[in-house]
């Protein structure tokens, strides 16, 4: 799968070749390379540490309790501009919609590819299709989504102007396009899990008279649950972190604005914003230009990402020891 840094595995295998060798006996060029490697490795740690710690420190120093409970007002005076309640809710809604679409779709694609996959050419095509979606820039997905959802046919999903022009910007539209960011991750993670199940497990199930579909549903999918979960967590990370789709497909209005009168549906059809978009519009590039609030919102974002990372780490380390039949 394209661009998947998460595939680092639970623990890269140790492969040091005898630690007794002294570096001082090496030729100069070799020693230079060795030192450069150390520098790169330490540099990676330092850069990450600096970024994360700086953002956490800076963000925490601007964090105020009221930011979490007040809606943004858009008033230029920053003391009255409110907090980021709506963006937080927006992030949650978008993530929920995205995962709700992506999880079944990703698992279905993975299951079909690894358990059925006939005819072979179609499986190859689907495989490269998923890879292609993984590689498509989210900005392209965003403006494509705008085209699709502003068709009159999809008018019921977003706001329609008095002249019948469909705006095509809503939580549903954004959430659906966001799910495309998560599908490749979920599919890859699930496939990896399914590939690790030895064939005798399937054969045992067939021997008991179970059909292929039942085997998949009752035996295979339950045992790859940790893989699905880590794929979902990775996908959530991507959805939470994406800005381009929000800017273009969610309308990026500061407040969550409903369309129509049906309680939940009106919000889903309406526009809003998410934390990433809040950071963007409060950075010097955006209209808000309130760096303190951008830092505070970025803090919340980073904490979410850190938590998701922890979940993935726990899941991947749990699954390496969990399955008895691999021993």
């Amino acid at each position, binding site marked *: 799968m394209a661009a998947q*840094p*998460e595939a680092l595995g639970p623990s890269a295998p140790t492969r040091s070749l005898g630690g007794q060798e002294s570096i001082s006996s090496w030729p100069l060029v070799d020693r230079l390379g060795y030192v450069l490697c150390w520098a790169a490795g330490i540099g*990676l740690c330092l850069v990450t540490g600096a*970024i994360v710690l700086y953002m956490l420190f800076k963000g925490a120093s601007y964090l105020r309790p009221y930011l979490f409970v007040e809606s943004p007002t858009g008033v230029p005076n920053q003391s009255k501009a409110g907090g980021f309640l709506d963006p937080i809710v927006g992030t949650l809604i978008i993530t929920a919609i995205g995962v709700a679409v992506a999880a079944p*779709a990703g698992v279905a694609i993975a299951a079909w590819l690894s358990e059925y996959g006939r005819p072979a050419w179609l499986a190859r095509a689907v495989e490269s299709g998923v890879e292609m979606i993984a590689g498509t820039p989210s900005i*392209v997905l965003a*403006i494509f989504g705008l085209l*699709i959802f502003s068709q009159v046919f999809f008018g019921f999903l977003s706001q329609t102007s008095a002249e019948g022009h469909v705006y095509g910007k809503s939580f549903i539209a954004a959430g659906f396009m966001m799910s495309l960011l998560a599908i490749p991750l979920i599919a890859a993670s699930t496939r990896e899990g399914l590939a690790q199940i030895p064939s005798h497990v399937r054969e045992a199930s067939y021997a008991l008279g179970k059909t292929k579909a039942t085997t998949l549903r009752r035996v295979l999918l339950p045992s790859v649950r940790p893989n699905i979960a880590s794929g979902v967590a990775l996908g959530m990370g991507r959805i939470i972190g994406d*800005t381009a789709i929000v800017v273009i497909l969610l309308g990026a209005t500061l407040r969550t604005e409903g369309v129509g009168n049906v309680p939940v549906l009106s919000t889903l059809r309406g526009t809003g914003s998410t934390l990433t978009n809040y950071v*963007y519009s409060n950075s010097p590039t955006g209209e808000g230009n309130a760096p303190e609030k951008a830092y505070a919102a970025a803090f919340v974002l980073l904490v979410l990402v850190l938590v998701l990372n922890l979940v993935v780490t726990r899941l991947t380390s749990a699954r390496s020891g969990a399955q008895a039949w691999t021993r």
Partner: protein
Amino acid sequence: MLGAVSVGVLAFIAVMVVTVFANAWPSFSHNGFIKWFFPGGDVDEQLRAMQSGLPIPGHSGYYIRAWPLLWGTILTTGMAVLIGIVFSTLAAIFIVEFAPPALRRILDPVVRLLAGVPSVVYGLLGILVLAPWVENHLISQGRKSSVAYVVQLTGLNLSVATVILTVMITPIMVAIIVNALAAVPRSWTEGSAALGVNRWRTTWQISVRTARPAIIAAAVLATARALGEAIMLAMVSGGRAFAANPLDGITFLFEPVRPLAATIVGNAEGLSNPHLAATLYAMAAVLLVSATLLSFAGWAAKQPLKRYGINA
């Protein structure tokens, strides 16, 4: 039913490609498919003219020559990938071969975390921390006035965009290269060590050479990622469609650029204007085609590894 969902993916891609190209075509055909990519005039002016509906003097209708945007994309992406690939290869060697076990356990989550940081957070860091520093410490007044007649130099420029883009794509490359290096058969490196070759030579000559396809694949996939980065580049690259000129020497690094993806974000409000929309979809089509080609190139680059039985 599972098959239906899977085929849905293909249907979705077909619809996406067809719609994006159908909407992009007016811009290509109006300006000439080849000429669209050429240099010619100030892109910002051309986009503004489309937005306002007033034609640029000397041209009928709307007019776009997108080269400065393409050049901005090539510069930011190319420089970031070039720096990133060297750094990532070294870091990956360190993680697999030289890192003490304790440090290796830290590096795994570190790489994952670096990959997970939202791009808008990188953009925020760039615009609030790195850009002011570059403006105050690296760009002298003399340098500013030397090019003041064409472009204004600020902290938001090519160098800042490249540095942050490098940080963003490094974890992707490190992860791919680490996987490949760790999968090199142990007996090969042991054989080399048994012949008295030192650890560095063994790594460089055996492991890195075996993993070379993965390094290429990493570069290609990272390029695809860097191409599509919109928000962060819209924040830090300077927001001016200027074709930075390498002949300007060091000043070149401090000239503003604006890549394709950032241009789409910056002009997103103009999507209701038919001419501007067609032009933006044309940019999206260029991105879509390049990203797709790169994904497949990345897949193809990895194929030689299969010969060694390495599934990286």
